[in-house]
């Protein structure tokens, strides 16, 4: 059971909460102790919009333990509109599949369970193709 770890990461995972550097105003995700842009200490929370584009992707057929039930699934590098890149699964893909450059948006989904069916459910960000519709 890794309950404390999942609990500690909930803000980042549920809502894509990263940081904005108080020194250089660079947006940071995932959060870091030191700003990757200017080297200052970064501690101010910043909630990302969740909009981005696919930079690269891979379709996973051989999953590590804990993810086997979901194969095949797609993992992507998503370039967020605020700048940072994030590694995340893509979900709700249709027949069109994935293309590099495709616009995607963040959704909060079930990632896996911690251990067996008695374990904690782990939720976190994934990205899906932007849905056509009013916004």
């Amino acid at each position, binding site marked *: 059971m890794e309950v404390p770890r999942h609990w500690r990461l909930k803000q980042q995972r549920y809502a894509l909460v990263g940081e904005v550097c108080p020194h250089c105003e660079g947006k940071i995700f995932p959060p870091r102790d030191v700003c990757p842009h200017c080297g200052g200490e970064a501690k101010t929370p910043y909630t990302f919009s969740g909009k981005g584009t696919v930079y690269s992707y891979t379709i996973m057929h051989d999953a590590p333990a804990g993810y086997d*039930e979901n194969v095949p699934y797609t993992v992507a590098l998503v370039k967020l509109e605020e700048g940072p890149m994030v590694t995340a699964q893509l979900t709700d893909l249709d027949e069109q599949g994935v293309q590099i450059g495709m616009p995607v948006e963040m*959704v909060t989904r*079930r*990632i896996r369970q911690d251990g067996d069916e008695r374990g904690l459910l782990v*939720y976190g960000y994934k990205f899906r193709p932007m849905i056509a*519709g*009013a916004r």
Partner: protein
Amino acid sequence: MTQTLPENLLLKPNRPVGIIGYGAYVPRYRLPAIEVARVWHGGARGGLPIKEKAVAGLDEDVITMSIEAARNALARAGIHAHALRAVWVGSESHPYAVKPSGTLVAEAIGAGPDIQAGDWEFACKAGTEALVAAMGLVGSGMGRYALAIGMDTAQGRPGDALEYTAASGGAAYILGPAEEGLAQIEFSYSYVSDTPDFWRRAHARYPEHGQRFTGEPAYFKHITEAGSRLMRAAGTTAADYAYAVFHQPNTKFPQRAALLLGFSEEQIAPGLLSPVIGNTYAGAAMIGLSATLDVAKPGDRILVVSFGSGAGSDAFQILVGEAIEERRNKAMRTQDYIARRTEIDYATYARLRGKITLK
């Protein structure tokens, strides 16, 4: 049964309560009813209860779907989640038996810790039960904004009649002072009795139901009592409402309920989603209302009557306000989600809904 009921029968808040924002969610997968019939009966044996139902993906559950509907509601409300004083999720498929869905939904949408966050259960009216509670919280002045969600990933035993319809989806509502609302909930009325038409015991995977007993003494009795008593107390008739939404376990029940209460097919058309998304249980009346708000005009009155087995109905009279025109464009509409559609076969459905035993 024709005498006017006292107006104090109605649950009417001290301070007028409005819908500040609303949001729907329907997952993308659709299982045609004919596909269920194919697997269990070699094809249709006559009429099918619906055309197709919405099915949640492998990574979806009541919590994730509630989060998305709530985000849509927040976008329409234009308030910060920190202003909420309650995050209430009504469902009969909470992912945990013990551990609130509400706290996780609240955290994900950015609500603060100053909230009520218990989960609600009353079969298919768990969502509207939360809505009535939210009216109370806001209407009493105890809190300014409250979020009430009805959402389900409904269960139906493989091969059972319910499997044709048991679907995934629902909607979220943020209530607040009526003057900020896109609609006012003028009052509600609830009618309940101990009627065991459908239940699921603790630790049971699938519900049991009383087959034809679920009809007259359960669904129709409670829907019509709640609807007619509200209208008599309010001094209204069906003609006073632009639209009506009834709990929709299939296509026919809400159509018949409408007929019994004097409503036309046109009045229930925008909110009758069960033919294309199925029965979303605690989400059904809630998402019927969101689809109706998506098309309603200022000044329209809407009657909503939910039904939950066990049994009871919550009826609401809603008056649509000016702000609807502008706010409904601030988030995905119910029909946008319905239009996003990927048809699946029974095998894929069985996998998505965990009906294939892996260990």
